[in-house]
């Protein structure tokens, strides 16, 4: 109950914008006493919200906290599905791990797990993802798409497109995609996306998209081995970026692109992906477990597979680390 009331209260403030809302109006809308309204507003204040209270006028929200919190992510979230079931924790070992547990316990599509800090963030093949400081976005989104199993890798390209668009809308920064879904600024890694699927026979049970975004890190926040290859949105923008805004815009873009995909298939996603992709038409090196291939990237096929024109003909790349140039 508590969190529902809080959610409704934030929604009210969100709709009111700069206007005052009377205590009576809030208590009517929430169906609780004015004393309870006051208590909830006190709790918001404790989270860092600045709420102005004026006699006879009511309450007005002046400032949101810079700190990430459940309320902060809900405040102004315009999606219908994505992120509406929200699980927020200040600290988690890994959002991906928590999302797995929730997915196994019937969490609905659109469930989002967010942590301010991760103590054991990970990338693919259990590689460590540096996410200990509370200055990035670490989140995992649960999907339950009714699509053929072999099509699911397309969702990783869709996620990359949604993240690029969300970052542009939230922070006005242009980012690039490196096949299949690394997101770079000036060639340095800014976002990593890890997608994991559980399936039975030919049916998808759940797809969990883990997204790690370097938002407010400054050069010295990265460990030495990452300093030359990683960057953050803040470094590109030259100012601090509101993390909740980044999450909200990405979720909204994701919801739109996911709807496009479910209605029209992969083609609209493919066109967008190619418009953001780095190195199409130029030479690149693809390191795979079966050797390294060098050639001109022709683009992706209708499944999202990278087509590389090598001396031995066109090579289809399903899994690789890509080096541009």
């Amino acid at each position, binding site marked *: 109950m508590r969190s529902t009331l809080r959610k409704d209260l934030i929604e009210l403030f969100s709709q009111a914008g700069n206007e005052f809302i009377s205590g009576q109006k809030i208590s009517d809308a929430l169906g609780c006493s004015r004393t309870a309204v006051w208590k909830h507003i006190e709790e918001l204040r404790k989270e860092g919200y600045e709420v102005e209270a004026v006699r006879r006028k009511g309450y007005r929200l002046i400032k949101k906290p810079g700190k990430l919190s459940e309320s902060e992510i809900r405040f102004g979230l315009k999606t219908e599905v994505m992120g509406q079931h929200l699980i927020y924790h200040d600290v988690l070992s890994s959002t991906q791990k928590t999302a797995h547990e929730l997915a196994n316990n019937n969490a609905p599509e659109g469930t989002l797990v967010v942590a301010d800090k991760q103590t054991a963030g990970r990338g*693919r*093949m*259990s*590689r460590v993802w540096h996410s200990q400081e509370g200055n990035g976005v670490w989140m995992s989104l649960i999907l339950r798409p009714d699509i053929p*199993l*072999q099509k*699911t*890798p*397309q*969702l*990783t*390209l869709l996620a990359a497109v949604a993240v690029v668009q969300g970052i542009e809308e939230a922070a006005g920064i242009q980012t690039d995609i490196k096949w*299949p*879904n690394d997101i770079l600024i000036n060639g340095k890694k800014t976002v990593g*996306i*890890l*997608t*994991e*699927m*559980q*399936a*039975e*026979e*030919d049916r998808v049970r759940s*797809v969990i998209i883990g997204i790690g975004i370097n938002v407010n890190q400054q050069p010295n926040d990265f460990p030495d081995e990452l300093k030359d290859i990683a960057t953050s949105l803040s470094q590109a923008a030259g100012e601090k970026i509101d993390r909740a805004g980044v999450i909200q815009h990405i979720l909204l873009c994701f919801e739109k692109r996911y709807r496009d995909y479910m209605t029209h298939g992969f083609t609209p996603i493919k066109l967008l992906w190619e418009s953001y992709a780095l190195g199409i038409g130029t030479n690149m090196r693809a390191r*795979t*477990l*079966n050797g390294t291939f060098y050639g001109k990237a022709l683009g992706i096929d209708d*499944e*999202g*597979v990278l087509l590389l024109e090598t001396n031995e003909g066109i090579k289809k790349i*399903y*899994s690789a680390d890509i080096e541009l140039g």
Partner: protein
Amino acid sequence: MLNIKEIHELIKAIDESTIDEFVYENEGVSLKLKKHEAGTVQVMQQAPAAPVQAQAPQAVQPQAQQAAAPAQEAPKQDENLHKITSPMVGTFYASSSPEAGPYVTAGSKVNENTVVCIVEAMKLFNEIEAEVKGEIVEVLVENGQLVEYGQPLFLVKAE
């Protein structure tokens, strides 16, 4: 037992040679390679455990692949072996990370929900479950190998 790579090399060597028939026996494994009059290679491998999925090198396709088909069909004692197949095209990973040991090996007991491997494409990692209770008899592919849709990955003796 010979691995697929060694068999490929043997086929290639025999294909390029004037040898008509080649028989190899070791520790209960017998491999017989025989050329037809047309000059193609026939692959027959009979192992006590299970047949290796022999993919003929391109030089002898497609006749050799057809000839290989009988070898893929399990001998009588293997009829109730369950095949775990790949649901998509991608890279086969036997373990969760390069440092970790494989999820399963021959002899591992599994149940329906045991994760046996990962198949990955475009950085989507698909955890493949056994979907049958029993014992892994053979791992048919190697770590890092690109697998096709429907390709058998494991043979399981179902309980």
